[in-house]
């Protein structure tokens, strides 16, 4: 949290707002629409990824946190990234160095899908 705050201090105001909303865990249209430069979070609750579509800037690190009682995985549909199985409260992070659209799913519960858009 401390480190994130340092990053936030160096960012422009609209991005700051977007990031704070993401960090607060509020489902927010702003958080989805505004690219976040450095870090963003996806929470896994009730067998779904939230936000389902996340837009970040090139270079951003996305961290997924499993908040379910059941393990999940975060696996890129195109083979770009693949987490190990994540049990309750375990995290997985990936840094997106290239612009593009990255669909992913939980390989244990394949009905769970999400997308990271990197701009």
């Amino acid at each position: 949290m401390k480190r994130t705050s340092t990053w936030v201090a160096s960012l422009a105001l609209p991005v700051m707002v977007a990031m704070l909303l993401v960090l607060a865990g509020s489902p927010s249209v702003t958080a989805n629409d505004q690219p976040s430069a450095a870090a963003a979070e996806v929470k896994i609750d009730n067998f779904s990824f939230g936000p389902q579509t996340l837009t970040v800037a090139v270079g951003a690190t996305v961290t997924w946190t499993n908040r379910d009682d059941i393990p999940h995985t975060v696996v890129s549909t195109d083979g770009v990234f693949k987490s190990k199985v994540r049990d309750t409260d375990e995290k997985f992070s990936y840094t997106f160095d290239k612009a593009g659209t990255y669909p992913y799913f939980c390989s244990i519960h394949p009905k769970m899908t999400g997308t990271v858009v990197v701009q």
Partner: protein
Amino acid sequence: MADKNQGLIDQKWHELNDDGVDRRGFLKCMAWAGTGLVWTMSGGIPVSRAFAKNTGKSDGKDGDFSFVQISDSHMGFSKPANPDVGATLQAAVDKINGLAQPPEFLLHTGDISHLTKPEQFDTVDQILKGASAKDVFFVPGEHDVLDDNGKSYLERYGKNVQGAGWYSFDKRGVHFIGLVNVLNLKSGGLGSLGAEQLEWMEKDVKHLKHSTPIVVFAHIPLWTVYPEWGWGTEDSAQALAYLKKFGSVTVLNGHIHQTMQKVEGNVTFHTAMSTAFPQPQPGKADSPGPMKVPAEQLRSLLGITDVNYVRGQHSLAAVDSSLE
């Protein structure tokens, strides 16, 4: 024994009458009776009951036997829905050992472990050693093949299997087929058998007589229970097509942690309770995650399935019993 069976018949019919089954429901039950099962509705959940005409009448006649299906032990799970899954698996074993007709063997329809860890498999193996039936036939659940694509599962349970862990065997004239539908799942999809396994299965049943009773067991249901939660297998229709010629097909699955049944032509589908924790009825919760119930109710939602085969009967009869 005969008196006991008659008592069971009377009790079941009494329950049917008491359940307020209307004419339509009664006709459904009659259809089930014809295939050896009676379908009753209990709290909105279809619950299988033996239509006990010949069920359990094991007088040593060649060919009659029973086996027990257990499922979804999830060893290693310790969340509030059941902090002690070892104790409930042990209770299942005690239940099995108390059955009037001892089963010849056990089928475990997957999710043996919660996280594919060796110590979790060890614990299950240890507890199952206490069962009166010594032979246990496994198929993997998705929780048994995490991270290693089924490698450690195969090292432990894959002695006489094909491919990713599928196999068949014969017991007293019944042909059993264990299938794997938890690997190579595609984004947005359901359970999957895959081309290689389907090809094997087609060959496996080709030489069998049409009168051979078939039992297929796999983790994820081979009929579409609720696709929104992934409760189905995308290429199961192909597998079932290979079984069309047989007079009696029984499909036993786990994964959904509750009993459900369906008859479609010659095929009776059945899912078993978990020995670890219950899951909600389809669409009745935000997700299919573990359902927390008051501690004193837990064991009434966990259990085993006792399957009876009586020679000459059209189909096998499955009796679900809760742990208490």
